[in-house]
C-alpha cells in the first residue's frame, strides 16, 4: 500500500464520507487512490469554494469538513477559507499535496511554504515527512479539529510521501500531551454563577456559535430561569428565533431590545462567544451597568481577552449548561421583562417602505413562504444583516454565515456544503451582487452534482455595505462601490450554466418570484433587483456604544438614548 492509499484508509477510519477538492500535480497520487475509495469527492471549480463548502458541511452536520488541494496555488487558494473557519471555530481538515521532500526549500515548481503560510490561520498544521506517520497525523488532525474549540487543521503531504510504500500501523494511540481541553465547568464557579443570576435584577443570557450544539440545554435553561436570550450572528438558531424569551441579535446591527438589555443589564451570562468588536462596540462603554459578567467558554484564552470577567467558567457549553440547569430556579424578573417588552414592542426591526422592491421584504417573503424552515447561507454585506434580521431561524446549525472574518463569497459554497450535509433541507443562499460574483464559478458544482440550492441575489447594484458607510461617514463620497453598470444578467448567467434563472424587478412581482424559486424542483438563481440606497438599521457606528444607536437613516433620524 502506498502513502496515498494509507491516507484514504485513515480518512475512512475517521468516518469521512465526503471530500471537497480540486486535483493538481502534487496531490495526484492521492486522487489516484481516491478512484478506488468509497469516499465521495465533490469537485469544486476553485479551492476556495472547496474549503468554504467543507466549512458549511461541518457547521450544518456537526462533523468534520474535509477539503483537498494540490501544492502551491491550490493550497494557497485555501487560505481565506481556513482563516474563515478559524475565526468561526469550525472543524475542518485540509489536505494539501506538496512538492517531493528533496525539492522542498528549492523554489520548485508549484512550491509554497503552506505550513508556514497557514500557521496563524489554523488551529494546528502538519508537514508529513514519513509515510508511516500518516495514520497518527490524520488521527491527531481530526481530534484537534473537532474537540475543544473546533478549528481547521492542515496536513501537507509531499508527493513522494504519498507514493512511498506504507509499512506502518493504523492502530496508533492518540498522544497529545500538550492538548487536553477542559470540558467540565468548575462546580464552584457554576455555583457562583447561579448565585449571581439569582440575585440579579436585570440579567441577560448571551449566546454565540459555541452554543450551537448546546441548543437543547440552552432552551431548557432559559425556560427554567426565564432569562432573556440574545444570540450573536454566530449564535442565531442556537435559540429559536420565534421564542418569547428571545430578544434578537446584539451589536452593530442588532435589535434595540438586545442592545439596551445589555446596556442596562446588571448580570450577563455569556456562553460560547468571544465579544467581537461588532458585538461590543467600544469595550470601555460596553455593558456599563454589569457588575457581574459570567463568561462560559471552552477556550480559556477568550475569557478576559476583551471584557473583564467576574466569573470565568472554562468548559464545554453543553456540559456547563447541563450543570447550570441542575441548580436553575425560576427567576423573578417581572419588572425587567416589562421594560424589555416595552423596548421590543416599541422598536421592532423595521424599514421604511419605498416604492421600489426592498431587500428586507424579499427576505421576509421567503421567511413567510417557508415558515422559516430552511438552512440559510449568506454573503457578506447589507443582505447578510438583513437575512439575520428578517429570517429568524428556529433551529441550530441553520444560519451559515461568515461571522468573524466577514468573507464575501461564502454564500454559494456554503449552500453547496450545507446541501451535501443535509440534502433533505431547503437551502437558501441570500447573496449580494458583489459577494456572489466572488465565487460564482461554483454554479458549475451545483450543476455537476444536481444540488438543489436556491440562490437569491439581492441585487442592489452596489457594494451596499461599503456604500452605507460612505453615505454615513464619508460625506456620501461613493468611491468604487458601483456595480450596476457592469453586473451580469444573473438569470441569464444561471441559464448559461443550465440552471433556472428568475428575475424580479417590481414590488408587485415579489410573491410570484418567491413562488417561482420555491416551486422549482432543482437549483435556481433568482435575481431580485432591490432599492439601491437602502441602509441597514439599527446601527451602532464602529467604536460606538448602545447609546449611539441610530435607529433610522439620519435623513429621518431618531436617535435613541439608551
Amino acid at each position: 500500500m502506498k502513502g496515498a492509499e494509507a491516507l484514504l484508509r485513515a480518512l475512512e477510519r475517521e468516518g469521512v464520507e465526503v471530500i471537497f477538492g480540486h486535483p493538481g500535480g502534487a496531490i495526484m497520487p492521492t486522487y489516484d487512490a481516491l478512484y478506488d475509495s468509497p469516499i465521495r469527492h465533490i469537485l469544486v471549480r476553485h479551492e476556495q469554494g472547496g474549503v468554504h463548502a467543507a466549512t458549511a458541511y461541518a457547521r450544518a452536520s456537526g462533523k468534520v469538513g474535509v477539503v483537498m488541494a494540490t501544492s502551491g496555488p491550490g493550497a494557497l487558494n485555501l487560505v481565506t477559507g481556513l482563516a474563515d473557519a478559524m475565526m468561526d471555530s469550525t472543524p475542518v481538515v485540509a489536505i494539501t499535496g506538496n512538492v517531493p521532500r528533496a525539492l522542498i526549500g528549492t523554489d520548485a515548481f508549484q512550491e509554497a511554504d503552506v505550513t508556514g503560510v497557514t500557521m496563524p490561520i489554523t488551529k494546528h498544521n502538519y508537514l508529513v515527512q514519513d509515510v508511516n506517520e500518516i495514520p497518527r497525523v490524520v488521527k491527531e488532525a481530526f481530534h484537534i479539529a473537532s474537540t475543544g474549540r473546533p478549528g481547521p487543521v492542515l496536513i501537507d503531504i509531499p508527493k513522494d510521501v504519498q507514493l512511498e510504500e506504507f509499512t506502518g500501523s493504523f492502530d496508533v494511540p492518540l498522544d497529545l500531551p500538550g492538548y487536553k481541553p477542559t470540558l467540565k465547568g468548575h462546580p464552584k464557579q457554576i455555583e457562583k454563577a447561579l448565585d449571581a443570576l439569582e440575585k440579579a435584577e436585570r440579567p441577560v443570557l448571551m449566546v454565540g456559535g459555541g452554543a450551537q450544539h448546546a441548543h437543547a440545554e440552552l432552551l431548557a435553561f432559559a425556560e427554567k430561569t426565564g432569562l432573556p436570550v440574545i444570540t450573536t450572528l454566530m449564535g442565531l438558531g442556537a435559540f429559536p428565533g420565534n421564542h418569547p424569551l428571545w430578544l434578537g441579535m446584539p451589536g452593530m446591527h442588532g435589535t434595540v431590545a438586545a442592545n439596551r438589555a445589555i446596556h442596562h443589564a446588571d448580570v450577563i451570562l455569556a456562553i460560547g462567544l468571544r465579544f467581537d468588536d461588532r458585538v461590543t462596540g467600544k469595550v470601555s462603554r460596553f455593558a456599563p451597568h454589569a457588575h457581574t459578567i459570567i463568561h462560559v467558554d471552552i477556550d480559556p484564552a477568550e475569557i478576559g481577552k476583551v471584557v473583564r470577567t467576574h466569573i470565568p467558567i472554562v468548559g464545554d457549553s453543553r456540559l456547563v449548561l447541563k450543570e447550570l440547569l441542575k441548580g436553575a430556579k425560576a427567576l423573578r424578573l417581572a419588572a425587567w421583562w416589562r421594560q424589555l417588552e416595552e423596548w421590543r414592542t416599541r422598536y421592532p426591526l423595521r424599514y421604511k417602505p419605498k416604492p421600489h422592491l426592498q431587500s428586507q421584504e424579499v427576505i421576509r417573503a421567503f421567511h413567510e413562504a417557508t415558515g422559516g424552515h430552511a438552512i440559510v447561507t449568506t454573503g457578506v454585506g447589507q443582505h447578510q444583516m438583513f437575512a439575520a434580521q428578517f429570517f429568524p431561524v428556529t433551529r441550530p446549525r441553520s444560519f451559515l454565515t461568515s461571522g468573524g472574518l466577514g468573507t464575501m463569497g461564502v454564500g454559494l459554497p456554503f449552500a453547496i456544503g450545507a446541501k451535501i450535509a443535509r440534502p433533505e433541507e431547503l437551502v437558501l443562499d441570500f447573496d449580494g451582487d458583489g459577494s456572489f460574483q466572488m465565487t460564482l464559478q461554483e454554479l458549475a458544482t451545483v450543476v455537476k452534482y444536481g444540488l438543489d440550492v436556491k440562490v437569491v441575489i439581492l441585487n442592489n447594484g452596489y457594494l451596499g455595505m461599503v456604500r452605507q458607510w460612505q453615505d454615513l461617514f464619508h460625506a456620501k463620497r461613493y468611491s468604487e462601490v458601483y456595480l450596476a453598470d457592469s453586473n451580469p444578467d444573473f438569470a441569464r448567467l444561471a441559464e448559461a450554466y443550465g440552471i433556472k434563472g428568475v428575475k424580479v424587478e417590481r414590488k408587485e412581482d415579489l410573491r410570484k418570484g418567491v413562488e417561482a424559486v420555491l416551486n422549482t424542483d432543482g437549483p435556481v438563481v433568482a435575481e431580485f433587483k432591490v432599492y439601491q440606497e437602502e441602509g441597514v438599521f439599527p446601527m451602532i457606528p464602529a467604536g460606538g456604544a448602545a447609546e449611539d444607536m441610530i435607529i433610522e437613516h439620519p435623513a429621518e433620524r431618531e436617535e435613541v438614548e439608551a
Partner: protein
Amino acid sequence: MRHVISVLVQDHPRVLNRITSLFARRGFNLESLAVGTTHQPGLSRISLVVSGDDRTLEQVEKQLNRLIEVLKVTDHTEPHVERELALVKVHVAGVEERLAVKDIQEAFRARVVDVAQKSLILELTGDSRKVDSFIEALRPYGILEVMRTGAVAMSRGDRVLKVREKKEAV
C-alpha cells in the same frame, strides 16, 4: 512589567516559529528568547522575556497554552534564578586601557576568553541587569561587538517545570 516565562515544548519542527509568530501576530512585546534541549529526549525548553501589564501577560500565557506542542508554561513570579551570558569584544588601545578593563572584568567576575592585539573578548554570566551594567561600564573603552543569549530562568527550591497535571488547552 518585565516577566520571565519558561515554556516546555515538544521539539517539533517549527515550534519556535509558532511561538515567535504568535508574539508577532498578537503584538506581544518579546525582549529576548532563549531555547535549548533538555535532559528529556523530545522536549525543549524556552525562556522568554516579555514585558506587559497583567492582562497582557495573562493572554501571553493563555495563548502559549493554546499551541498544541506547548506542554507547560510558567511565569516566574516566584523566587527564581535568572542568568544570561554575554560575550563582549572591547577595544583596548594600550596598557593603561587594558588594566582598566581588567579592573572592570574582575569587579564583575567576568572572564577573558580571547586576547588580541587591539581587543579582548570578555565573557560574563549574570542576570540581565548585571549584564546591562557590565556593558555600560565597558562602553567608554569602545565596545566592538556584543552577543547576549537572552535570559534563562529556573524556579528556586523543589519546584520543577514538568508536564504534571494536564494543562488546560483548547
